[in-house]
């Protein structure tokens, strides 16, 4: 194919891929008469509680991400260095959960949260997601490629297991943990199904849940709804632009190795 034709084709696809997001931005900064206006943003933060939803999304996202960095690291390390009997079995549990469709657990998890009194609280948004199988898988694969000699040398020098784990292995895992952190944050930020079924009051509503519930309400128009969408999308776009290489390599690494 000639070079110029390739660029024409690539650009045409570019328009198709980017237009809907462009349309969202355009609607968010115009009013119903197509005049530029930022009133939509003022409206959603004052009349609707987008400040609260944004806070909830950030709070849950940050806690879940920190939890995953620590816990996926610990569990991935245990599997990579076979620190417990039955490591292989436990690794299979990780792989199996990766394949299990979530719809099968929504009803039991809903009942569980109701019975334990955790329904409609920050706990319900955080607890199930503090460690995830893809993260354990990523860390385990990464640590397996690291030479064990450093850890052994430290052990001979009399360093305790905890010291070896957090002072020697963890710093070496930074690249894998960075990929993990970005992926976990983005997945959590965009997640809808569980936050939607496990909370009911406005106090614990995250951005995706709030947006999904606002569609169809008489009191809000498309321009305001799109302003809310922009609030939900911009943090992810910024993360994507800054960490693009990490995100891309995380996705291909996870997929190809499987």
């Amino acid at each position, binding site marked *: 194919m000639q070079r110029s034709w390739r660029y024409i084709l690539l650009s045409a696809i570019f328009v198709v891929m980017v237009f809907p997001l462009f349309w969202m931005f355009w609607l968010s900064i115009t009013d119903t008469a197509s005049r530029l206006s930022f009133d939509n943003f003022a409206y959603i933060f004052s009349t609707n509680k987008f400040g609260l939803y944004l806070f909830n999304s950030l709070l849950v996202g940050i806690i879940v991400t920190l939890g995953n960095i620590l816990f996926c690291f610990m569990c991935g*390390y245990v599997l990579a260095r076979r*620190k417990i009997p039955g490591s292989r079995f436990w690794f299979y549990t990780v792989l199996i959960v990766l*394949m299990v469709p979530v719809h*099968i657990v929504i009803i039991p998890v809903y009942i569980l949260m109701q019975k334990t009194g955790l329904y409609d609280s920050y706990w319900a948004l955080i607890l199930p997601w503090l460690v995830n199988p893809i993260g354990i898988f990523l860390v385990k694969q990464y640590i397996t490629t690291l030479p064990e000699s450093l850890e052994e040398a430290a052990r001979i020098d009399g360093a305790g297991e905890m010291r070896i784990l957090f002072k020697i292995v963890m710093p070496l895992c930074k690249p894998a943990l960075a990929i993990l952190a970005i992926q976990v944050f983005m997945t959590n930020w965009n997640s*809808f199904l569980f936050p939607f079924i496990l909370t009911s009051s406005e106090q614990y509503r995250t951005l995706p849940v709030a947006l*999904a519930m606002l569609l169809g309400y008489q009191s809000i128009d498309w321009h305001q709804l799109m302003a809310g969408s922009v609030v939900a*999308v911009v943090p992810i776009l910024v993360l994507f632009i800054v960490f693009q290489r990490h995100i891309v390599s995380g996705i*291909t690494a996870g*997929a190809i190795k*499987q």
Partner: protein
Amino acid sequence: MTSDGRYKGWALFLPWILTFGIFWLFPLIYSFFLSLTDYRLLDPTVDWIGFANYARLFSDPDFITSLENSFIFVIGTIPFTTVIALGLALLLNEKLKGRTFFRAAYFMPSITSMVVIALIFSNLYARGGYLHFLADMIGLHPPVSGFLLSEKTALASIMAMDIWMASGYYMLIFLGGLQTIPDELYESATLAGASRWQKFRFVTLPMLKPVLLFIIVINSIKSFQVFVEVFVMTKGGPLNATFTGVYFVYETGLKNFDFGYASAAAYVLFAIIGIVSILQFKFLKTEWKA
């Protein structure tokens, strides 16, 4: 390993044991037990009813419709998503200026929240919305009420949106696969006088088989679970036209609180997804050996 070290090993692994036990293993078992009962939220008596829920499912027209729609969704999206993703990957696999830029742009829909995408397309598909306007202008006679309010076009519209959204993601996985193909293979094919098409057919495609299998299986599992799009855009309507399997589970279980019946539906869907994945593995593997 000292017994002390082993003890610490378990302590370090505890987060996964708890998460696996509480949020996966227990729900999987519990939900099967539920499916054998008539447990409802507001009904204090819970009785064992054996497989009656399962029998009821297969004479429930709503459930049959939901399965049909799920199959239409899977069969109607995966070939398109896969072929488009492979095409995009091939377009971007060669060294050319702006490659990273285009790759990022095509991938962008995949990192955007599904709720937001569904909202944007609800607007584009609506009566007088941009896509509706465009279709009308080029003489396609779109439904007067908008794409999502017509039985004929609602499901297809959601499917088209999903293909648009997922293509960039699978493109990235294909690109990863393409990069593992050694250059020597193409060089020797060139020496043997192979055409572009022959190189694609006899070098690229066979080498991409594991990635292709991975993509088809993963995408099927994902697509059988379509829910968010339906919830935001159509709520299963109009006239059940977009009523899918997981939407059935949601509506019976968490709107009508018929936990037993919904769990049975969830298990049937689970079994279907499992069987389809195994069949895909078997079928595609033997196909490739031939």
